[in-house]
């Protein structure tokens, strides 16, 4: 089995989908001959031609809007937004249009399409090349929101997203693009959208996370284990629709919960996880739920390592929840 980085797995997933289905198209800014600023689409124009992998003018609104029309007319667009920070000109197309098309037409028209976009910090990108905007989108009915954290999941979830009958926002943790290599099967396979992944078993504390925070949490869990605190680590990987039963089972198992994300705390995704647990199984909780998140500030540049939740901050929360 080949071993690939997360970004190579994305690239491989795109190629597999394009080989298998002629209606799959890839487009966006700089995705053609340059292969994307992160090289996620490298080699696609060479293999599939300019008709199926091409650069667009600099307009996210144009990219997503045309993708909707293509999707409504028999194509499978997989468009790229160069940085999640630049998705906002397309917010209207995503939130008002793609997400609501099925509902507002009684199922007559649909937008089966994927919007891929790198998100998150760790590259010294400052305010506008670092953000984690998932909560803007998980608040949007009709959209699916997927965030892989491993090469295997990146390819399998991407292929599942492309096959999905609804629009999917596929957010790629850029900090993990070249983080490690792992086994990725050749050819086509999918990872089910809306089942979480058990990263690590443990009986003392449950830590929910996704995307770029997964390796950070794993490191913190290793450190905690040295002190005899055994963490169950859960990678949510599909934020919408969420595997609620999976979340409740995992939380009930330990009764002590930490939720970790890079995005700001206030109205962040962790609030939803905490609320679901509180609403359904508060009687099983042994400690208050703790969130470890980015601050409620814009994303800084020089001090980004202070902004990003790190092993230190996650471990501190685990310890606090464990001894409560």
């Amino acid at each position, binding site marked *: 089995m080949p071993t690939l980085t997360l970004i190579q797995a994305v690239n491989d997933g795109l190629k597999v989908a394009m080989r298998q289905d002629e209606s799959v198209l890839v487009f966006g800014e700089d995705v053609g*001959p340059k292969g994307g*600023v992160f090289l996620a689409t490298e080699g696609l124009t060479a293999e599939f031609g300019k008709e199926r992998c091409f650069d667009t003018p*600099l*307009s996210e609104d144009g990219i997503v809007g045309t993708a909707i029309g293509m999707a409504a007319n028999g194509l499978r667009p997989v468009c790229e937004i160069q940085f999640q920070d630049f998705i906002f000109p397309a917010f209207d197309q995503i939130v008002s249009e793609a997400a609501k098309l099925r509902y507002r037409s009684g199922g007559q028209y649909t937008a089966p399409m994927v919007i891929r976009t790198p998100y998150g910090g760790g590259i010294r990108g400052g305010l506008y090349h670092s953000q984690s905007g998932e909560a803007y989108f998980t608040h949007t009915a009709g959209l699916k929101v997927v965030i892989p954290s491993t090469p295997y999941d990146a390819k399998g979830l991407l292929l599942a997203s492309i096959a999905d009958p609804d629009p999917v926002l596929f957010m790629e943790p850029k900090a993990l693009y070249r983080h490690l290599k792992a086994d990725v099967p050749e050819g086509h396979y999918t990872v089910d959208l809306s089942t979480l992944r058990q990263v690590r078993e443990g009986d003392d504390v449950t830590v929910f996370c996704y995307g770029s925070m997964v390796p950070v949490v794993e490191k913190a869990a290793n450190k905690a284990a040295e002190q005899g605190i055994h963490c169950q680590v859960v990678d949510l990987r599909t934020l919408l629709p969420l595997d609620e039963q999976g979340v409740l089972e995992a939380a009930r198992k330990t009764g002590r919960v930490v939720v970790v994300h890079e995005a700001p705390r206030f109205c962040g995704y962790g609030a939803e996880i905490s609320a679901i647990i509180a609403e359904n199984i508060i009687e099983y909780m042994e400690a208050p739920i703790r969130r470890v998140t980015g601050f409620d*500030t814009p994303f800084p540049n020089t001090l980004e390592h202070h902004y990003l939740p790190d092993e230190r901050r996650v471990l501190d929360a685990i310890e606090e929840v464990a001894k409560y």
Partner: protein
Amino acid sequence: MQTTQSTEPFRVISGDGSVGNHQVALTDEQLVHCYRTMLTVRAFDDVCMKLQRSGRIGFSVPNKGVEACQVGAASALRQTDFFFPSYRDFGMALYHGVQPVEMMHNMFGNAKDSALGRQMPVHFSFVEPIKFFSISSPIGTHLPQAVGAARAFQMRGEDHVALVSFGDGGTSSLGFHSALNFAGVWKAPVIFLCQNNGWAISCPAEEQTASDGFAIKGQAYGVPGIKVDGNDVLAMHQAVSEAAERARRGEGPTLIEAVTYRMGGHSTSDDPSKYVPKEILDQWAEKDPVQRFQSFLKQKGLWSESLEADLTREATEGISAAAKEAEATGAPGLETIFSDVYAELPAHLRAQGEAAFDLARRKGSADAGDGAFPL
């Protein structure tokens, strides 16, 4: 000057440096200052490239090839006008006396950076000696903002103008179209400066638009458009001066397309050899704006070997000293993450800041990563 397309761009300085019977509006001193500024931009570029390659700053954007657009445009405006720059407009700030060290503080994101290290390099913000509006990464967002600033001048009856600078890529943004439309309707005193440098990262201008150049785009909005040789300081000066006079007289906005070429990569992270044809680069190298202006200064009797040596030394020493000073300046304090989010620190941010300090005391400080910028 012509407002129709498919014409050659408006030009003053020909290849050999002669200007025919053109009346040069700038004084000798201003002309030398234009040249000095262009050399300073080049020196700034060189130093930043080295700093980036040696890992001391994270990122920069090369200005090579587009210096005449920046300097020619800046030379036509007053310090009381309002600049809405792009990230590739170093020369506009330098021309009007922003100190290189101020810019270097931003490149290092240190405690003396006007934005306290919050922004990426090249995202400058200055209020003195000119209003050089805080640069944002999302392309095109500053265009309507410039129209609003111009409207404020108009409402107060002041004869200042706003100049907004953006690229060929920027014309595809939503902001471009809203801004031209509003400015046309309001007859706002704003100058739209589109620096058509041939590329938006790897997307060639021909794939950016099917229209015949960019100046023509003003027409549909009732905004006169002109195409100017962007490698010609004097042509840029004249075009922007005329647009500014029109605006000051209350006759409204102008769209200027400066035809130029990006001679370097999009940024220090980009490898343009993958997509920029070498033949075209060689053609444009012959039209180098600094060389062209030097030829003009020679013809005018303003250039000498010793002037060149002095200005070059002044530029390189000045920029190196600025870089040294900025590098020796410490990082901003942790509290700067939380300040300036609002005029007053709200309770929840105070609590988050205190928790961050508390954790740093108990568990040590966070490790600085070595994230490399890919774009």
